[in-house]
Structure formats: structure tokens, C-alpha cells
């Protein structure tokens, strides 16, 4: 039994059951319990999510090409990108750390973007297959989102610790800013997507389950 068809929806904050007005109006509908604005579906969810996904793909390119940090010594400046950082750890034998950075900075953002693109396309094409799997994939993007921040924190901590004036200094690279934007924008993109849209798609052949 779908809540929308019965004229109900759940408040996203307090999960209070809210009766929707008979006619669709663009009016502000506050939750009677917590006061948060209630929507049957997040408005323009698909468009916003697409816009944010595309923005983060664009930012992801300079995030990978530009250096995350510069190490300034007498000998000159050495710059590290995300990939060169991973390769450095591989060469020096710190496989675990290399794996952590590789997963947090490369696997997690790409996985999130691919899942969101897949969900967006399948909702737009009204693909009714494997809804439960899609729901789980969406839950995964929300779960792993913030873990990409590891590399940003590493840069911030290195700057704080290696700060000896003219002698040796670490400075944040331009890539760090873009990477931070990728993390934040993909997190907002995942929040903008409405998982209820996955379940709104009607099954093509009816298995006799009249809803």
C-alpha cells in the first residue's frame, strides 16, 4: 500500500504521518509535529541531483590533475596529486595507507557518482527492475559519502605539523579545494535524490498484487 496513493506522506525529520491536501498546491506545508516543510516527494529531485552530479564530475577533473599539497624545502617545491600520493605510499611499502587513500579519494567518489547516475537514469527510464537493490545502493551512497574527506584532513594536518617558517613548509594545493567541493557537492546530491521515486515506478507486468 503506497502512502501517496492513500493521500499520506511521512515527515522526513520526525517520520510523522502527514495527510496531504486534496488538491496539489505549491503552498508551504509544515509538519504538525516538528514544523519541518513536508513534501510528498522532494521537489525537482531529479533535476537538482543531475545538476549536482554534473558539477561534481567537472570539479573531479581538476581535483585529480592539480596538486593536493606542496612541500616547500630549500631544495625546491615538491607537489603531490592524489595519484602521486598513492604511488608514493606503494613505493615505500605502506600498502595499507595506500589502500586507504585510494579507496577514500578515488573509489568512493567514483562509486557514488556512478550509483547516482545509474539511479537517475533508471528512474527517468521507468525501469522497474530490482528496486530493493537500488534502494540498498542509495543507502550505500549516503553511508560512504563523508569518508572521502580523509585526504582533505591529511592535507590540513600536514600543514599544521610541518610549519617551520622559511625552512620547511607544506602548503595546500589547488586540487585540495576542488576535491573538497567534490565531496561536499556529492553529499548534497545524494541528499537531493528522493529514494521514493524508485518505488513510484509501476511494475510492467502485474503479478496480481493489486496495490
Amino acid at each position, binding site marked *: 500500500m503506497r502512502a501517496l496513493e492513500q493521500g499520506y506522506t511521512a515527515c522526513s525529520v*520526525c517520520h510523522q504521518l502527514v495527510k496531504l491536501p486534496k488538491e496539489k498546491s505549491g503552498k508551504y506545508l509544515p509538519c504538525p509535529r516538528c514544523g519541518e516543510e513536508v513534501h510528498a516527494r522532494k521537489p525537482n529531485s531529479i533535476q537538482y541531483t543531475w545538476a549536482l552530479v554534473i558539477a561534481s564530475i567537472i570539479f573531479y577533473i581538476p581535483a585529480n590533475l592539480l596538486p593536493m599539497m606542496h612541500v616547500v624545502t630549500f631544495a625546491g617545491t615538491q607537489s603531490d596529486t592524489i595519484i602521486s600520493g598513492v604511488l608514493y605510499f606503494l613505493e615505500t611499502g605502506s600498502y595499507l595507507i595506500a589502500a586507504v587513500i585510494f579507496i577514500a579519494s578515488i573509489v568512493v567518489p567514483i562509486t557514488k557518482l556512478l550509483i547516482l547516475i545509474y539511479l537517475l537514469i533508471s528512474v527517468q527510464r521507468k525501469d522497474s527492475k530490482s528496486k530493493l537493490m537500488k534502494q540498498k545502493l542509495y543507502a550505500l551512497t549516503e553511508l560512504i559519502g563523508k569518508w572521502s574527506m580523509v585526504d582533505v584532513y591529511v592535507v*590540513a594536518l600536514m600543514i599544521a605539523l610541518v610549519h617551520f617558517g622559511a625552512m620547511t613548509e607544506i602548503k595546500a594545493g589547488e586540487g585540495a579545494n576542488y576535491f573538497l567541493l567534490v565531496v561536499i557537492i556529492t553529499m548534497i546530491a545524494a541528499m537531493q535524490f528522493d529514494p521514493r521515486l524508485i518505488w513510484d515506478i509501476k511494475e510492467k507486468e502485474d503479478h496480481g498484487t493489486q496495490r
Partner: protein
Amino acid sequence: MMKKLKELERGEHLVCCHECDELSYISDPEKSGRFECPNCGHLLLRHRTGLVEKMYALSLAALILLLVTNYFPFLSFHVAGNTSHTNFFTSAIYLFEDQQFLLAIAVLMTTIIVPLIRIVLILALFAPLYYGHLPRYAPFVLRALYHSLPWGMIDVLLVGVFVSMVKLVKMGTVIPGISLWSFMALVFVIAAMQVVYNPHPIWERIDEARRRGVAV
């Protein structure tokens, strides 16, 4: 322990899954246990004993640990006769000095300000509840906790600390400070808080107070 929902048992507690929009009935919402959405398996309601006591204790512990973590030096680093001490504020301050405002604000917000606000809000809600008083600002606190949840990233910072320690060990001597230990404890206390935290019984208390005509 999973309670299977009895579907379509009329006249009983009606709930709507906010993930998949399925309406279902809960036969006995006061009973302890987990109630999962029959359609997608998402957790709808959960009842466990001792919510208020545990949250009060954990939030007090978290507040003390957070203050200790940010007051004492975190890591000290020696290289070629130079020493630097750091806590989380120093990393944000150096980022500000280098004109990296975006990074500075993001680091400051996600590692200090949001966790601090969340802990203070939880304490402000559960301390009065522990002494049997439902504060007027309870709905505001519950909403703020819902919206701030994804932006507190202290657990991610722990991984970042380990990675930067491994990086720095190759350049000089890293000496862990008192703060590092309290920080590690803090991450576990915050994780415990997130496991125990459950807003539904508080919302039910708010409903009940309003039915009795108390302004909440």
C-alpha cells in the same frame, strides 16, 4: 531480533516508510524491539530501554573528551632541531593564514564546530529529560540533530590522523600528545551515541505533552 509487521491490521499504529513510501501498521508500537518496513526493510521504529540515561552519560563524556582534545597538543613533530605542536585549531588557523578559506572553514566546521554543537544540543536535551523534564526546545533540538548528522566527520578525521602520522614518521619524529588518546576515545563515544540515539520515543513524549496541553 526482528519483529515482522502484521500487515493491514486495521485501527492500529499506522506508519509510513520515508525511504520507499510504504504504509504499514504496527500492532504494538510500545513493545521493545525493531520494526522494519515490510517493503524495503528500512528501520522504522526501535525501542530499547535506557535511552535517556545512556545519552546523558555519553554526551557528558563526549563533551569532556572534546574539550580535552582541543585544549592539549595533539601531535608534536620534531625534525632537524625544530618542534611543532598541533591541535585542530592550529590546522584551521594555518589554512586561514594561507588564504585557503574554503578548506579552513570546512575543516573547522566538520571537525570542531558541528561535533561541539551536536554534543551540546544532545546534552541540553537529555540532561533535563534525565531529571524528568521535557524542555520546550526539544523539537528544535531534534530537528537540528537530524540536519547536522551528515556534517559531523570526527570519525573520518581519525583515519586522516593515522594517515598523516604514517606520512610524517618518514620525515621526522612524531610524538603523540594527550589529546590523541582523548580524541580516539571521543570517536568511540560519538559512535556509541549514534548507535544509541533514537528520536522516536522523544517525539512520542512531545506528542503526549501536547495532548496534555503543555506547550512544547
